[in-house]
């Protein structure tokens, strides 16, 4: 409850949730988040999700017994080190100062005696960086629960790989897929995220994709990244339409003062063409079709196929 009360007044701020797991990929995500959240109007929350200690898998002896034993030895909870390293990176990048006010909070969690732990660093301007060690049944659930405590404008997390078959996805959806499916805000799934190459926004002329173009233009402005547009026609007959779509999007961006670096029109399978064009950019930006998990499974969705197939980072905009 405390979390909800604390975050409510911050709804008008640009809030970024970065998921940290100690991997290089997650720190790349953090560096990107630092670019997005550099202004005083933005908060960055670093999240590490620790699986709920439960005894069924540990033969009936609660893992908490082992955990308490570790704490008695003066050992830190897993994740604390990774979060602190993230904080040091932000200090190094000049996003936060080492003299900011610090406040620690512990929230009890049912089923885990050690609960959630949070350290908030607050600047005089109101800018906030938070290290959050959260306990949840699984990582994806933890991230989604944290969104509920936010809310956040964007969730950034790394993905371990691409190409997971339907069978594997049905069996155990990857964390990134699960978060991208269920999160109500935009989600950036990072793969070898390199900040300097700009955003490639996909448009098909629909209202939803035009919204995406506008929203991503805002994000690109935050990190000072160039913006390019792509539209894919299924065949030569559709080429003129595709060209019209990028031109409309370009015009729309011009109307809000943003210059487009490049426009691309391709012909063929949209997923293949977008994935092929992706490596020249930092992020491929696609719109969420608002389909639910089941609808997406049965009907398919270009956005999710791009996310699964791409070598590049993909942002699903909502």
């Amino acid at each position, binding site marked *: 409850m405390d979390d909800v009360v604390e975050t409510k007044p911050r709804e008008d701020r640009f809030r970024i949730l970065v998921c940290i797991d100690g991997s290089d990929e997650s720190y790349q995500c953090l560096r990107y988040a630092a670019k997005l959240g550099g202004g005083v109007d933005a908060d960055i929350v670093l999240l590490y999700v620790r699986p709920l200690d439960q005894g*069924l898998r540990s033969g009936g002896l609660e893992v908490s017994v082992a955990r308490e034993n570790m704490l008695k030895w003066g050992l830190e909870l897993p994740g604390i080190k990774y979060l602190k390293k993230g904080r040091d990176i932000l200090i190094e990048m000049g996003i936060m100062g080492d003299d900011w006010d610090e406040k620690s909070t512990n929230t009890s969690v049912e089923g885990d005696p050690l609960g959630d732990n949070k350290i908030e660093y607050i600047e005089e301007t109101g800018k906030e960086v938070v290290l959050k060690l959260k306990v949840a049944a699984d990582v994806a659930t933890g991230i989604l629960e944290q969104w509920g405590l936010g809310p956040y404008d964007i969730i950034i997390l790394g993905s371990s790989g691409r190409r997971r078959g339907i069978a594997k996805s049905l069996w155990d959806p990857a964390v990134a897929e699960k978060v991208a499916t269920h999160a*109500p805000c935009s989600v950036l799934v990072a793969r070898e995220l390199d900040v300097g190459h700009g955003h490639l926004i996909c448009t098909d002329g629909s209202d939803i994709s035009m919204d995406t173009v506008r929203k991503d233009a805002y994000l*690109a402005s935050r990190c000072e990244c160039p913006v390019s547009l792509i539209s894919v026609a299924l065949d030569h007959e559709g080429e003129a339409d595709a060209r019209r779509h990028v031109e409309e999007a370009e015009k729309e961006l011009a109307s809000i003062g943003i210059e487009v670096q490049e426009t691309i029109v391709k012909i063929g399978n949209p997923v293949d063409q977008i994935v092929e064009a992706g490596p020249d950019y930092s992020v491929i930006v696609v719109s969420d079709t608002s389909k639910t998990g089941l609808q997406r499974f049965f009907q398919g969705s270009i956005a999710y196929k791009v996310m699964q197939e791409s070598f590049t980072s993909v942002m699903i905009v909502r």
Partner: protein
Amino acid sequence: MFRPRISLDPAAKLLRLHQLRDKTWIKPANLRQGVVVVGRQLNLIYFWEKKWFFIAMAIGVLMLNLPLPDDLSQGAMAVLTMSVVATILFITEPVPLPTVALMIIIAEVILLGLDSTQVAKTLMTDSVLFIMGSLMLAVAVVKQKLDKRIAWLLVRITGTKTSRICFGISVTSGILASFIGEHTVAAMMLPVGITLITLTSDDPRKVRNLAAVILFSIAYGASVAGIGTPSGGARNAIMIGYWKEFFYNPTDPESYHFLVDYMKWMMYAYPMFLVQLPFVTLILLMTFRPEYRDLSRAVVKLRAQVEEEGPMKRGDWMAIFLFFLTLIGWIFWSGDYGMGTIAILGAAGFLVTGLVRWDDINSGVNWGVVLLYAAAISLGVEMKVSGAAQWVAAHFMTLLTPLGADQGFGLWAAVSLLTTFVTNTMSNGAAVAVLGPIVLKLAVVANESPIVIGFITAISSAFAYLTVVGTPACTIVYASGYLKTTDFLTVGWKMVLMSTIIMLLAASVYWPLLGV
């Protein structure tokens, strides 16, 4: 025109971003709308998350409505259905696992038409009592802080070379785990291992391989030892219970050898554990190649840290005395009083002497596990009574015959392979509870010794080296945050291969010497 790549001064940029946000971005009100959308989708999300529950239920309904094979009774089909549904739920875990136990109990009453009191009676056996008592003892032992004493002894004996320390950790973890269970040892040794790692380097990436070797020495050292004695793991107690339930007949002296006591189990399995120990260290060192060959710095600091504890206190000696008394009870009197009685006597001893509080035991034991094993054993007994186990065994045998795996070495290897596969997908106790009735009947059909097949099943169920959830020790060391799930695969297959070869050698060379 605004060009995103050209930097403005911070104030101008902020103003510009605010203007842009107003034109393009989601406002808090819209975010709340998003929450409403999520709320609308909640039901679908619920079904998606629980999909395996509904798939399992659909399979159950389908099986119950299939035409009955000629040689299978309606009751046996119902038990078979329950087993299939329970197995799917054990593996996929769409609902908390104790829920599966509750569903088994309900199904036994409703689908099999058994009397509720009769079902309740099948839930509490000596094996279940033993599992319960062992878990209480585990918490009591961990709470004694004997880990620092063990760490002190360990580094004194092994010296400072990494390889010797790792072997020492495996031996210590193994010997302790063989008597007090792998979860207890993993919980006690984990801080020792992590302290050694953190005292070597604060940066986890600089000690990545060292951490893997040390933590796996704890987990695998304890896992290979879990087979050593009945108190090494719940699976052993479950198999002992099945032998008695399936084959023991008080009026037939020929069947008395199916009463396997603590000592008899040790004679079969303990040497196997000892043979595996050096291979554990060898495999780990060859797979991970630690960054530091000598841990002098860490060992010196650890010694200093441990020595702060001072000399052994009266409570420490009392805890050791009580534990040895329980161990002696298991070895010499378990045949007369049952292993379960002695386990709870030991737990009662710790409570009476005030060495542990009931609150600690209550919060440290996951009672759902006790319920789960109780229901799984009860279902296993119904598999036998209804004839379902016999039916599955006979049909499984027809599959094995063309492969030449219907007897002897081939059958042992097939049973071991099947158990290893199942145990890597669910807890090893549940694997033995599910497979036990089938493989024991398989032994009867194949005219093989149920004792040998039973041992192969119980021992193979410890070969869950491939996944985090496979063995309790693996789950606990994974909680340290130093290991990746892929590490378990990288080294686990080598462990499975080594353990399987040693077990099959024991079955063909050593066990015949014991008169099987």
